[in-house]
């Protein structure tokens, strides 16, 4: 069958019409997926064996990443993973209502997150705890969402990190608008330009809002990097339920660059995201990045992936673990010694213990919080509702149980 490249300009035969269907896209994509390699166009700087691959294009974007910096990225990933595992554990212990694990996606999140500057803005979905960490958001501030004490805790402006968005795709348009604002304010056009990055999953690419974000950003040259973490699954649905083609190729139809990066390679994610942000800073946005990675855990703690995927798949991906390859590289190249690795593990355990302590002691919010901040300017109707409910509660306090 012809390559996708040619589908754009079909060449119908001069004879009779086609008489049988070509191989289905599922079959084609199944072929692609069978490798779980991301295909020939995958950008990689550090392979699963921990070998550094040269890239004339992208090496300049990580020329500052010496052993110390790489140790930093390693540490980030280990801490974030440890905290993520603690999240799972705390959910099992009933301390959190739900947890959304990032296991396996540490490189995509740390690599892209560390590419950002303080003046940039990131719009996460709901799984970007690693990005939150790179933006200086205290991991503890994430817990309220999953414990049910608040919907979002951090100061988005101070951290350049928007609240989590749960409705799939919504944040892509919000980020595009934000990036348009950066441009309208004249903050785009040179090395000091600002940029926006927005995170979403493979499943999200089907939503109308993501498409509209692509349309808007292309029309307004918005400085926005679309960072799609293709973790191969949208809950129980594999990527071929969303697309015939590799997702980075979606950008083709809109006239801006799309690129696939090894989402388990923290160095490549850093380099590619820096490049993409740079394009945006200079007014050449938008850019789509597909980080080819894998959700190594369940969709959330309420999900049971054994119902829909084989453990073989997980085993293959374990060989491509994002942390392990950096450890091997650091060890082989003498960039780090055992003491360092031990120290990072100890730091990670302390980090998790601190989180755990905090979580177990989180107070419940007071009932008046229900009514607070619905509006920025008061609503008399709501105030009356609040008064009435608080009076009702006070009645209990006075009168005891009915």
């Amino acid at each position, binding site marked *: 069958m012809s390559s996708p490249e040619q589908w754009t300009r079909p060449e119908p035969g001069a004879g009779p019409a086609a008489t049988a269907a070509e191989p289905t896209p599922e079959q084609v994509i199944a072929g692609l997926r069978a490798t779980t390699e991301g295909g020939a166009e995958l950008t990689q700087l550090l392979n699963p064996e921990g070998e550094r691959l040269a890239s004339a294009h992208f090496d300049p974007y990580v020329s500052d990443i010496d052993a110390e910096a790489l140790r930093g990225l390693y540490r980030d990933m280990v801490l974030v993973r440890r905290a993520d595992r603690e999240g799972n554990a705390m959910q099992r212990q009933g301390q959190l209502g*739900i947890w959304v694990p990032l296991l396996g996606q540490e490189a995509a999140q740390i690599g892209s997150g560390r590419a950002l500057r303080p003046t940039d803005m990131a719009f996460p979905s709901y799984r970007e705890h690693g990005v939150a960490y790179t933006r200086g958001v205290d991991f503890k501030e994430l817990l309220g969402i999953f414990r*049910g004490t608040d919907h979002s805790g951090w100061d988005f402006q101070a951290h350049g990190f928007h609240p989590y968005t749960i409705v799939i*795709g919504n944040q892509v348009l919000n980020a595009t608008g934000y990036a348009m604002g950066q441009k309208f304010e004249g903050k785009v056009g040179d090395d000091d330009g600002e940029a926006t990055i927005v995170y979403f999953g493979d499943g999200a690419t089907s939503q109308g809002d993501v498409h509209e974000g692509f349309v808007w950003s292309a029309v307004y040259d918005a400085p926005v990097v679309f960072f799609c973490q293709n973790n191969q699954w949208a809950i129980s649905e594999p990527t071929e339920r969303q697309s015939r083609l590799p997702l980075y190729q979606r950008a083709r139809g809109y006239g801006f660059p799309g690129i696939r990066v090894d989402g388990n390679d923290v160095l490549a994610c850093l380099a590619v995201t820096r490049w993409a942000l740079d394009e945006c800073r200079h007014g050449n946005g938008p850019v789509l990045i597909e980080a080819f990675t894998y959700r190594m855990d369940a969709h959330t703690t309420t999900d049971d992936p054994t119902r829909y995927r084989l453990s073989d798949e997980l085993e293959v991906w374990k060989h491509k673990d994002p942390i392990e390859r950096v450890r091997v590289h650091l060890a082989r190249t003498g960039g780090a010694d055992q003491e360092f690795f031990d120290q990072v593990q100890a730091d990670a355990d302390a980090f998790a213990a601190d989180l755990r302590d905090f979580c177990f002691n989180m107070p419940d919010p007071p009932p008046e919080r229900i*009514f607070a901040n619905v509006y920025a300017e008061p609503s008399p109707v709501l105030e009356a509702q609040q008064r009435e409910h608080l009076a009702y509660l006070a009645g209990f306090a006075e009168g005891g149980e009915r």
Partner: protein
Amino acid sequence: MAAPVRSTADQPTSSVQNLTIGKALNLGLRAAMEADDKVLVLGEDVGKLGGVFRITDGLQKDFGEQRVLDTPLAESGIIGTAVGLAVRGFRPVCEIQFEGFIFPGFDQISSQLAKLHYRTQGGIKVPVVIRVPYGGGIGAVEHHSESPESLFAHIAGLKVVSCANPVDAYWMIQQAIRCDDPVLFFEPKRLYHSGALKAPVDTAAEPDPLFASRTVRQGSTATLVAYGPSVKVCLDAATAAAEDDLSLEVIDLRTLSPLDLEPVFESVRRTGRLITVSEAPSESSITSEIAARVQQECFYSLESPVLRVTGFDTPYPPSKLEEHYLPDLDRVLHAVDRALAW
């Protein structure tokens, strides 16, 4: 594509089974698919996974991938293609994963699904069912605990129903699928797997009509009207009140649009007092509509105004606060007290 064979292993020996609401829905869907091969099930994760609540569990295995579709992740797509499938003669049953995710599909619902029959002077029927797990009390994150049913009750051309027990779950889903109108089918998600609500479902019985309210407890002091998850709250309240010698009548609305208020009018004419209960915000809602109509129909019978016990007019709060947000037995009884003291 697998042939739609029913595995006989599941076959119950008697026609009566003791079911949860969730299992009753599952069996109801199965029965509808067996009865009519034009019935399709579509939505996110409804196939292999059986839906995040497992309501469609096993259906894809037995009916194949062309009758149980794991769709791409987009609600407008789910509903928009369902409309097209209905135009073609299918009877699609869409699952919206949680009520908070129905909004991307709102336009297809209000602009096409609700209007196609009217616009074509009856030329096109769109027998689409949209199943919506709704309501709170499950300790979830945002967008997973809302009650948006009033929005759909306001849109002409749609029918809106909600079930509150396993018997209704089993029958109402089948009746909704057989109905030639689009039906928004609201399912009380926190009760899906409630063992306490388990009830014997006789699959050989004759069900009540779909678009009819039902008095589920008789009383004489005041009337409570509710639907979906709030019916249980009202029944519990009535039980508690009985200890104080208050006799509360409880009506399960079942149909939210069109409303079947005759039983409510009749009841209010006897009791003189009405409390409507719903988890949804009260402003411009189904409970407003009930109050508006009852004050008109029963003007001279009402001994106190119709009172409403509802969610507050706020977004759904973080789940640690939901016990305050959701109408409970105490709030219902407090309203009864207020009505009696008026």
